């Protein structure tokens, strides 16, 4: 015998209430974190903060110029390496989905996506840092590039798979050679999707600390030398957050604020691109 309908309706409404409660409660910690970082960080940020290197403990002032430049250089370098490789691999995967190589590289993308960032750090340490005998920005870039690859590959592949076959067939029937079809028809049509994948991957790696710990290490001074240790935003936060000095904590709040602004902007850019071209990632 089923319970009375009134009871069942009540249960149903109660369940809905619980679901809504749990679904919205989760926004609270995010809002608290964001507001706190903004509150603590925004007072730190000024021109002096952005253009100076960190001051020694006890001294007022100092900034994060070296970390800003370092992060920028390393992420750009990583993008320069990862974007072509990722796009080519993505094109290959979407053009030849049935080959054995495609199966295995698809598997590798899945694996790479799940590899903990700290493991990437260890491996790049043995690939780059140890042979050259010094921590270097180059190592950091390679580690970041490895982390960017799966995101770029997957977004390229997904976008290109959505393009209608007739597009490619039309171009081929006009006698256009295959490589030109890819370059002039397929890639431009899927450009927005690929671009959103690139911005997303940059947003993902710009906050990565673990792979940089053993590769780029960090540097108290301003440096643009790729073969030497280089500072980065997340690393500066890690170092100063775990230090015992209040001045340094303030620096770290400021750096967190800047990092957050970068990450959020990149995410919004990605959103706008995907919204405009109606792509599902």
């Amino acid at each position, binding site marked *: 015998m089923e319970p009375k309908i009134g009871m069942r309706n009540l249960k*149903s409404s109660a369940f*809905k209430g619980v679901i809504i409660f749990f*679904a919205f409660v989760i926004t609270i910690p995010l809002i608290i*974190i964001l507001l706190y970082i903004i509150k603590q960080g925004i007072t730190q940020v000024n021109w002096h903060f952005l253009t100076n290197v960190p001051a020694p403990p006890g001294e007022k002032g100092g900034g994060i110029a070296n970390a800003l430049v370092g992060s920028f250089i390393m992420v750009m370098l990583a993008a320069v390496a990862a974007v072509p490789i990722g796009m080519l691999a993505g094109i290959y995967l979407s053009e030849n989905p049935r080959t054995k190589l495609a199966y295995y590289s698809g598997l*590798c993308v899945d694996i*790479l996506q*799940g590899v903990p960032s700290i493991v990437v750090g260890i491996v790049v340490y043995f*690939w780059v840092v140890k042979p050259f005998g010094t921590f270097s920005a180059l190592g950091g870039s390679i580690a970041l590039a490895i982390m960017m*690859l799966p995101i770029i590959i997957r977004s390229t592949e997904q976008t290109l798979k959505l393009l209608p076959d007739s597009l490619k067939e039309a171009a081929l029937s006009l006698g256009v050679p295959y490589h030109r079809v890819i370059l002039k028809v397929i890639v431009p049509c899927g450009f927005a999707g690929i671009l959103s994948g690139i911005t997303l991957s940059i947003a993902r790696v710009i906050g990565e600390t673990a792979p940089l710990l053993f590769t780029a290490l960090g540097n108290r001074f301003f440096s643009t030398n790729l073969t030497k240790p280089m500072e980065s935003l997340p690393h500066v936060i890690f170092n100063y957050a*775990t230090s015992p000095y209040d001045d340094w904590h303030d620096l770290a709040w400021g750096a967190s604020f800047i990092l957050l602004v970068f990450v959020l902007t990149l995410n919004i850019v990605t959103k706008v691109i995907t919204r405009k071209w109606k792509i599902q990632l």
Partner: protein
Amino acid sequence: MSIFLVLIIIGVLITLIVESLPSIKSSGIKYLWGKVWDPVQNIYGAYPFLVGTLLTSFIALIISIPFSYAIAIYLGEYNPKGWLSDLLKNTVELIAAVPSIIYGFWGLFILVPLIRTLEIKLQIIPFGVGVFTASIILAVMIIPYGASLGITLIRMVPSPLKEGAYALGATRFEVIRKVIMPYTRTGLFAGVLLSLGRALGETMAVTMLIGNSTAIADTFKNLIFGPGNTMASVIANEFAEADHTLYLSALIELGLVLFAVTVVINLIGKRIITRFTNN
């Protein structure tokens, strides 16, 4: 270029295995349940870190599951369209976008004092940092992974199934419990697996909050609330100061174990999802 990808993975695996060989040779399989981690005397047992990793991940998972399921059900079934659902969906994606270092930093300055007051009230040694603190932050961080997959899966439930149940007079709760849940069960489980994979490998936030103690706790209370260590946090803390080969290679073996575990978990999760979406 795809070959390049396969080469990277093979290279990663070979590097990890070769570099951890000295440790594998000296400790053998005992490495996994050796209880002592003492670099000074060259004794390496990964057991405390295995326990720490599993503990933080599972506590985080248990905390996160109600939330990610609720978000999935709400956005997949109750409110799939409209500005409110867009807002919530974007917020959840934002949670995934915030770098882990920022969670760690925030946790260190806000959550740790809170937990400390709680521990004083519960009459436990008030470390503040510890397994429980790390798990809370970890839970927040992994919620989006389970949730976003859940939303897609719940939206894929064919509407004739739901309509049939409604036509028989089922209430919304009954439809969710008896139609949607059984239909999506395996897929939601895959989502849990994927967030577990995330939680196992998470490094920075955990390193900053777990307290980094290599000793294994004696009582249950200390195990949950006291400081601990995970595989990833040990590597992050000690890799740079490892001064002899065996020490270094013991740390890399930790990385190898971590790599193997996360790869297996991720592949199982992905396999379930592909099978689910193809049917």
